[in-house]
């Protein structure tokens, strides 16, 4: 069982993993406003998110939008956060989200670099223990591939096989008995999809086509997860997210690259709105779901702890009431064991009561969170 809960973002290089994470984490306060939970980043996470956010805002201020405003991840990063339940300051649940250079998904890269191989082993351990696997999808790559060479490039650009391999290991681990009590949520999150929706300042009408494409292209991944996690439920969410909201794809290019055996993808975006304002869409749902996952996992841990305290209490009680005979009774009472037994039982009872109070508080928070409506774009598959 996890002492601290984990989630991981898995996608190839330049797909927008850090942009997605920043969209989710930069505005947690706003995203969780009105919900019964709050999230506090640790110092490093706050500074990391601030640096990312500064880059994104810089892109806006520059007036000429650069879809790749973030500098590109070069090292493994863990975003460490603390989930707190409003109304009970004893509930502090730590969790962390992993981001890593997408290139490490490629076995050939890992083979050629001992750095990637070493760090990948740590990433893989984190991914296996994650309650949520978040798969960002560059929707422009998926939607703008029209000609056969372009369509042929899509599996490589979105690293289907590598992502599937990771998802397989994740699902296998989630299916193991010791992890079955924990939640398992797979989120397919198309990003950069402002052009295809008409509900966030745009006029797009391709939402259904995007959904269909994701279903089609990630069907194998879903089959793999279902097959590997046969003994448990895996919740699958489809969550198309606007990480900016105020930009729109204008032109897509598919340049040939002599190093690659397929086309590469290049996109040009324009601002919409005057002045353009960041309007993140559907990211709150991811945060809600993540909180639900973490709280649900923590509830299981609490239940186990309470069971342990109850077991210990029963043992102490059994020791107290057992027939001891004259000599052992004398030792029990005069030797101080009776006092220690009484104090330990009282301490256990206090722990059980506190644990149950926390569980109740948490369950109320989870229920409230569940009643907060999901963004209408998000679907459970």
């Amino acid at each position: 069982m996890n002492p601290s809960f984990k989630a991981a973002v898995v996608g190839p290089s330049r797909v927008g993993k850090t942009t997605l994470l920043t969209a989710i984490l930069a505005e947690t306060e706003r995203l969780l406003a009105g919900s019964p939970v709050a999230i506090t980043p640790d110092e490093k996470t706050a500074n990391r998110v601030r640096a990312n956010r500064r880059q994104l805002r810089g892109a806006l201020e520059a007036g000429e939008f650069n879809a790749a405003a973030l500098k590109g991840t070069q090292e493994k990063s863990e975003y460490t956060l603390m989930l707190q339940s409003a109304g009970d300051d004893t509930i502090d649940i730590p969790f962390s989200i992993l981001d890593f250079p997408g290139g490490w998904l490629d076995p050939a890269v890992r083979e050629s670099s001992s750095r990637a191989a070493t760090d990948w082993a740590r990433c893989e351990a984190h991914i296996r223990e994650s309650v949520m696997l978040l798969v960002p999808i560059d929707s422009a790559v998926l939607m703008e591939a029209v000609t056969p060479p372009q369509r042929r490039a899509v599996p490589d650009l979105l690293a289907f096989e590598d992502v599937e391999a990771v998802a397989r290991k994740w699902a296998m681990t989630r299916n193991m008995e010791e992890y079955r009590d924990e939640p398992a949520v797979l989120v397919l999150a198309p990003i950069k999809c402002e052009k295809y929706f008409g509900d966030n300042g745009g006029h797009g009408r391709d939402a259904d086509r995007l959904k269909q494409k994701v279903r089609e292209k990630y069907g194998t991944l879903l089959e793999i997860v279902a097959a590997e996690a046969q003994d448990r439920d895996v919740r699958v969410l489809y969550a198309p997210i606007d990480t900016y909201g105020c930009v729109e794809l204008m032109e897509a290019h598919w340049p040939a690259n002599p190093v690659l055996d397929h086309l590469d993808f290049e996109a040009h975006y324009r601002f919409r709105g005057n002045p353009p304002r960041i309007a993140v869409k559907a990211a709150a749902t991811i945060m809600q779901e993540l909180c639900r996952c973490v709280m649900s996992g923590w509830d299981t841990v609490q239940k186990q702890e309470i069971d342990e305290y109850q077991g210990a209490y029963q043992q102490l009680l059994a020791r107290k009431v057992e027939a001891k005979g004259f000599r052992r009774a004398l030792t029990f009472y005069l030797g101080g064991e009776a006092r220690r037994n009484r104090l330990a039982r009282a301490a256990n009872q206090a722990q059980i009561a506190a644990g149950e109070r926390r569980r109740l508080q948490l369950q109320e928070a989870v229920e409230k969170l569940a009643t907060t409506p999901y963004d209408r774009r998000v679907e459970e598959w």
Partner: protein
Amino acid sequence: MTRGTARANDYQFIGDEPADRWWAPVADQVLMEEAELIVAGRDGRLCFLLSGVPSARRDVIGTEVRYTVVVEDVAADLDVARKLLTAGLTDAGRARFGELLDKSFGGTVVDEILGGAARADVPELVGAALRELPGTPAPADGDDGPRSWAGPWEKPDALDTFRRRVERLAAGGDGYAFTTHLLSTLKGAEAANAAVPDDVAILLVDGTVDRVTELGKAGPGPGPGPGPAPGRRVTLVIGGLVMAAGALIWVLWWIARRLF
């Protein structure tokens, strides 16, 4: 380390990967995507890592590409060490270093290397760029701060103290000196100091620490709590037993006298 144009050509070392990741103990305390400097002195070796060195190159989706440069064993060449230090601590120095690296690794050179083309001359090319960096004088006289400290990057006296620490590392001292965009408070710096076994000098690029401030390493764990030492405890137990036995004999004698 840098990246190529294609999406697939993510950040990797071009040329030989360093055999020893000497910066690993402090890697979690810095933001490698930003302009950071790590200097380590270990066993007479002096090593530098400069991240966030800007390149004019762009990847296929238009992101600015950068270099992370690792230079090892420069203790013997104080001139190069000082050039690296200036490149690592000033925006102008870093920008100039990036331009010089682009001269050697511009065009398609990086794409070719990442595509598998063998280039054994990467260290020489980096060395040539280093030699072209402007010379830097030795820092003004003074001390290099407490054993471990944190200070503000924007304060000249903290920068000077940092430079002197690097000179000490170059002279054979052990420890780390690094800048960080990831930490911003004294508490964070204390935690970083506790996580690194050696002495550290930390320059906070953006933080709440306003002067060079000592950081304490945790000493040996707390000793046994208040209460008698084990030897004394044995004496006390024996004394107690003797007294209890005496009391018991007295009670038995008293009862016997009453009964008989």
